[in-house]
């Protein structure tokens, strides 16, 4: 997994609450059996005026000029500013895959849906929760100032504004450690293989019916 330490990038504001994973990546693109290539279809229904199909070349599709990520000033954005309950809905990991493939490294919002939040960490994307007020202020500043960049320092758990103001955030110790070092979860868990085996043995003894074979 990609490590995340310090990232500085252009911030783009997506001003709507409850952005669900169907909106982040519509279901027709879930038919892919790969993890990559979802970037051109990120926010497909908001971004284009026609209905996207998997495998299609998106460069000739009619774009929605109103949609924030289509505006010139936000080209190359890598920090997404969003509203509350971002990533609600389905558990599809295609949502963070699409954000990542598009170039986002970090999403900042007042709150996230649980499964999406979790999925971000598995894919080297940092979801940051800030207060409603702090997010409101960021929306205003980003919209007011073209080329607004944010610096995100995971080690110090700070979002740093262009004027040097710092906003603190906090991330679980374990998740932070994995993300900082780009560690693979499975490898880490398998270090506990003995504990898992011991648990499994006791579990099977006390509740053997949980181990009946499916056939």
């Amino acid at each position, binding site marked *: 997994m990609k490590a995340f330490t310090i990232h500085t990038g252009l911030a783009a504001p997506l001003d*709507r*609450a*409850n952005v*669900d994973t*169907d*909106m982040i990546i*519509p*279901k027709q693109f*879930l*038919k*892919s*059996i*790969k*993890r990559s290539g979802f970037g051109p279809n990120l926010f497909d*229904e908001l971004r284009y005026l026609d*209905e996207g199909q*998997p*495998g299609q070349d998106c460069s000739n599709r009619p774009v929605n000029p109103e949609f924030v990520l289509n505006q010139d000033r936000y080209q190359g954005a890598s920090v997404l500013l969003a509203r*509350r*309950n971002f990533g*609600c*809905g*389905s*558990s*599809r*990991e295609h949502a*963070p895959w699409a954000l990542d493939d598009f170039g986002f490294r970090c999403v900042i919002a007042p*709150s996230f*849906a*649980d*499964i999406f939040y*979790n*999925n971000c960490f*598995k*894919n080297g994307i940092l979801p940051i929760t800030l207060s409603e007020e702090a997010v409101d202020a960021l929306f205003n500043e980003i919209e007011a100032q073209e080329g607004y960049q944010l610096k995100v320092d995971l080690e110090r758990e700070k979002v740093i504004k262009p004027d040097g103001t710092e906003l603190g955030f906090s991330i*679980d*110790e*374990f*998740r932070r450690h994995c993300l900082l070092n780009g560690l693979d*979860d*499975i490898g880490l*868990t*398998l270090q*506990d*293989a003995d*504990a*898992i085996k011991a*648990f*499994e043995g006791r*579990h099977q003894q*006390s*509740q*053997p*019916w*949980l*181990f*009946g*074979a*499916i*056939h």
Partner: protein
Amino acid sequence: MAGKTLYDKLWDNHLVRQRDDGSALIYIDRQLLHEVTSPQAFEGLRLAGRKPWRIDANLATPDHNVPTTVNERKTGIEGIADPISKIQVKTLDENCNAFDIVQFDMMDTRQGIVHVVGPEQGATLPGMTVVCGDSHTSTHGAFGALAHGIGTSEVEHVMATQCLVAKKMKNMLVRVDGELGIGVTPKDVVLAIIGKIGTAGGTGFAIEFGGDVFKAMTMEGRMTVCNMAIEAGARAGMVAVDQTTIDYVKGRPFAPKGDLWGKAVEAWSDLHSDADATFDEVVVLNGEEIKPQVTWGTSPEMVLPVDAKVPSPADAIDETKQEGYERALEYMGLTAGMPITDIPVDRVFIGSCTNSRIEDLREAAAVVKGRTVAKTVKEALVVPGSGLVKEQAEAEGLHEVFEAAGLQWREPGCSMCLAMNADKLGAGEHCASTSNRNFEGRQGFGGRTHLVSPAMAAAAAVTGHFVDVRLLMNKELMGQGA
């Protein structure tokens, strides 16, 4: 020491290792797999040269992409018209063969929507931890199990380690007291709950549904409610084990048999919250006050009783919500103040992991019996949740009731719930749907979904607009119907 909640007990029973930072390894008893969220997980295992930890803990079935017409189904995978869907279903097939995982494939009568299949087979048992790369895994919590949706990386993690890295959630009790009125169903109960606590109300919580209404509810009803816990933001929803649970599980193909059955039942008797357990949050509703519900907007929390009027953005409690209302009204093509019963219905979908079990089909059939689908309704689909539900419904003659009324009787799968196969809405079309999500574009590009119960969907099919199903039922009571 304070008592434990059901969730606390399930958590403690599966705790392999508590880490210092609050995260933990919990042991997973059952993983269900489907074609959409598993290919990248299998690929990950292959790339790392890993094998599944415990093959028999896994059960797979294709559901999201499978076609639902008899024609497209009869030649198996090769008959799937959409080439990309075909690859995905085929990939599941190949992966299950390569890793030796049991799959109920497209031609197996046991195939169906994972969340219908697991419980139906007794592959979901009380006291289990159940995961699936699908957010509606919360369904299985109806059995007093800890069940929740996970992402694809976690699917791979569970296959490789039989464990999930998790953090303990907080406890919420949603209690619905009293009794439900006639024509008010479990779907209405869960929609009313979501209307009350909002789509993020349960974020960070495991919800236990308790109170008289759930005690009196059938297992299938409890599954409908737990299914939608995720629409209230909670990854897991659950109901305590009681005699209803045990009667339902007994005799299912993978349920314990003989001596083991007795031991299991004894162990399951502890699967309820202790009387002195404390919850971090308690929400109480009165069952008597719940009316049939209809969602008017693009989020499950935008829901109202059928006799209400479409709200105005001015009714929203804050600015963010107000903008959400405005956007939803525009997308749904509705005007504030119009009665919900004036919303015309273009298509009807009865199915999905929320409402495609036999009781749901009976409920819908009872309403359409002796009536016909309104002329203005372009299409009304009934899609059973599994091959076995289909068989049972046909044995009861329900398919004939539907077909006589002008509804289509289909093959099992997710179908128009998320429109990954050919069943979908056209732009601007309103659909009375028994599924669980009314997000923009969920049932087709530009489509407008209204979530309702099977009885309400059936009532909309025969009248061409939303209507309080209790009015149709009253006529029956007055001797004008069956």
